[in-house]
């Protein structure tokens, strides 16, 4: 999308509101709700989408006024400071650009970054523009190694020659150019420690694949990159997580999308992605029971929530996983495999899984 186009969309939002004000109306923005109540799991495309429920935010309403002001302030800062100059800024930077005290008061326009972050997400829903299109980036928190060459800005990067650390995935991956990809699949893992293990073991070389990691939740940049690898290069994507409810959820976010970013599902979800492990079956097969960690009350509550999400409800395989998890009253970390030998994961576990196509849908 051309930059001028994004500017016009924001300007139109402003014009619409000043029109309302001119007519003596309470300025109001209507946009689709972004909460669980308005999340629809589209079975056909297998993605989470926003429903049609809308909420309105108006200025002359005590509980909306501040959020209204924040949204407009963020929009104006993005338009003036980022789009007009063509520069990018981090969420943190946007926070500081909007953070100021209203003269003669002790009221700040934003007090915490979560407020400006939220305003940006709202702005995405309001304008239909993605955060990346609004030139706002997030912290990069991921690495990639493997037989892939890409162009980042004006630099050509060969991800097979980047040592232990690998390529540091930027926050915005839309503009990366995938020059040459020579791999059979992509292995994405939630734990950087496992990434380092596999990289040291030259797993990607031996198995001709690409390794990608984040730390915990998958960032938008990584999700977008994985999606592009799946769509543009037709690579299978396998997800490797801890055998617990949070791992399951990380997988589901990559596959179906998340509640908070359901409005951006189209650009982020990868319905073809598969879950490689760790499963509860692995626990039994590889005799990891003694390495189980007892479920906490918090885990139990989260399981109860997750098994009822529409995108898990009809998934028999996953329901079975949760059932065993509850029966064993335990969860397992990927690192538990190290008990079998330091390179057990790269030499036995993963190759056998991939060979036998032991995946969860």
């Amino acid at each position, binding site marked *: 999308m051309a930059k001028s186009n994004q500017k016009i969309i924001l300007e139109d939002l402003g014009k619409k509101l000043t029109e309302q004000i001119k007519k*003596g109306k*309470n300025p109001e923005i209507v946009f689709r709700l972004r909460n669980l109540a308005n999340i629809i799991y589209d079975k056909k495309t297998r993605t989470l989408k926003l429903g049609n429920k809308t909420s309105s935010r108006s*200025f*002359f309403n005590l509980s909306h006024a501040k959020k209204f002001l924040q949204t407009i302030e963020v929009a104006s800062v993005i338009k003036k400071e980022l789009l007009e100059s063509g520069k990018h800024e981090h969420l943190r930077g946007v926070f500081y650009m909007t953070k100021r005290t209203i*003269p003669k008061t002790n009221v700040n326009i934003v007090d915490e970054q979560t407020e400006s972050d939220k305003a940006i997400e709202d702005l995405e829903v309001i304008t239909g523009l993605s955060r990346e299109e609004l030139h706002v980036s997030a912290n990069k928190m991921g690495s990639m190694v493997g037989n892939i060459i890409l162009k980042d800005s004006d630099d050509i990067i060969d991800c097979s020659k980047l040592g232990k650390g690998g390529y540091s995935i930027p926050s915005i991956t839309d503009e990366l150019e995938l020059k040459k990809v020579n791999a059979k699949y992509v292995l994405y893992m939630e734990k950087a420690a496992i990434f380092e293990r596999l990289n040291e073991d030259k797993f990607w070389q031996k198995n001709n694949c690409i390794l990608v990691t984040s730390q915990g939740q998958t960032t938008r940049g990584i999700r977008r990159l994985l999606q592009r690898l799946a769509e543009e290069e037709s690579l299978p994507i396998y997800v490797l997580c801890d055998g617990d409810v949070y791992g399951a959820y990380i997988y589901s976010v990559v596959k179906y999308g998340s509640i908070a970013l359901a409005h951006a599902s189209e650009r982020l979800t990868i319905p073809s992605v598969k879950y490689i492990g760790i499963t509860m079956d692995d626990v039994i097969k590889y005799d990891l029971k003694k390495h189980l960690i007892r479920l906490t009350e918090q885990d139990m509550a989260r399981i109860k929530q997750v098994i009822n999400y529409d995108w898990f409800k009809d998934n028999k395989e996953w329901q079975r996983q949760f059932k065993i998890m509850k029966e064993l009253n335990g969860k397992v970390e990927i690192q538990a495999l190290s008990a079998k030998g330091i390179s057990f994961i790269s030499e036995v576990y993963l190759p056998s899984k991939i060979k036998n196509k032991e995946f969860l849908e």
Partner: protein
Amino acid sequence: MSLIAEELAKSQREISISEFFVKNKHLLGFDNPRKALLTTIKEAVDNSIDASEEAKILPDVRVEVTQLSEDRFMVIVEDNGPGIVKEQIPRIFGKLLYGSKFHRLKVSRGQQGIGISASAMYGQLTTGKPIKIISKIGKNKPAHYFEIHLDTKKNEPEIVSERIVDYNQDHGTRIEIELQAKYQKGRQSIDEYLEQTAIVNPHLSLIYKSPENETREFPRATNQLPKESREIKPHPHGIELGILIKMLRETKAKTLQSFLETEFCRVSSKVAHEICQTAGLYEKSHPSRIAREEADALYKSINQTKIMSPPTDSVIPLGENLILKGLKKEIQADFYAAVTRPVAVYRGNPFIIEVGLAYGNNIPKDEPVRLLRFANRVPLLYQQSACATTSSVIKTKWANYGLSQSRGALPIGPLVLLIEITSVWVPFTSESKEAIAPYPEIIREIKLALQDAGRELGSFIRKNVRAKEQKEKVDLFEKYIPELASSLSSLSNEKKSEIEENLQKILKKGLKDLLVENGIENNAENKIIKENKPIKQEKQKTLDELE
């Protein structure tokens, strides 16, 4: 063994009342130098107001405290009361337990007749100086001047000096006591005592010259003397066994029947007959011949017999009007309320509970409410936590009335609470008359009064808070408008001033409706409570609804 008893007998002797009190100063409120000063002034002022009221004179009282040296003070209290006849002066000021108040059941400030002579004695013990009195009983009568010492062994007055002097008013009494003391402002100070006295005695005119040489005037708020309460005989249900036995021994009545009828109130011949029958006693028995066991039976029978409540004109309340006048005079607040309960009875003693409250304005917001406790119009400054009024306030659920309150604590908020008990016999927890004893009937009445007043307060707070919230709302929008206008202007490329102007217009349109709806200007400022009105929840219109 007998030898030891004889030995002991040598050291056993009568203890004079004065000697007893020398050793037990704290019982009378002379625990420390600061309290001694307060107690002295308190006893003198209480006496002055009591005497004036009995003589139907509007009291003018002047209090002067002068610091003579670091720990030595001179207290002068002067009134325009009826004066004291010459013969009585030595005994009133120089003998403990002498007076007219102990032997009767009538609402009065002092009760035991210990007060002023104890102050004189304390002064004498700490400085060696006698109490000095001038008293005059009428226009053409001489003014008598006395200096009196108290013989603490014999509990008898010793006249040090006596003469006739010039005195520049028609009648009245002036006393002068020199004592070792300490002056300190703040809680439990003379200043606080006088201020509170002025609140519940709006007919009193008081001038106070402090040791710091400041003169404070507490002007009279009404020329109406409080109605005099009637002296009553004890009610049978209020009598304890020991007192009953004493009364039986001392009565002039010749028969049990007439003893019951004449010594008590509300005992008709029918009731007296019934009491005797239930007790299994002969009506014509001579009261002094009633044995211990028989008295016991009589006591039980009295308490089993249904007897009409004591006459209520024996306790005259201050009244809601005067409470409000007193509060407004001394405490600046946004809202006042007062409640006078009907007469109730504990142990046969009639009493009335009254509650007043003042809320808002300069009263500190984040502190526990200030409690002003009164018994027969005398401020109680000490032992707040031991007092029935305090426990009643704590047991009342103030959260219902818009104040915050932790469990087992006084509520927090800008509130002054006045609680007054009026009774022919106020039950104190000790002789120093500092805390009211927690009789269930008394606690119940206090709570009912607090609830009544609390409901009115609650409805005021709700209304007030609502008005405040509306104002804050408007303020908030006013602050946000320039900010929004500036962001919107850079977003839309429209003129900032125009956007701001238009936003102000929208706010003003809504604002006018808001103010009318909530009546911010005409908040009920002062209100007298006559009855419990159901709390109306007015519909609240918000800016959102105006849209």
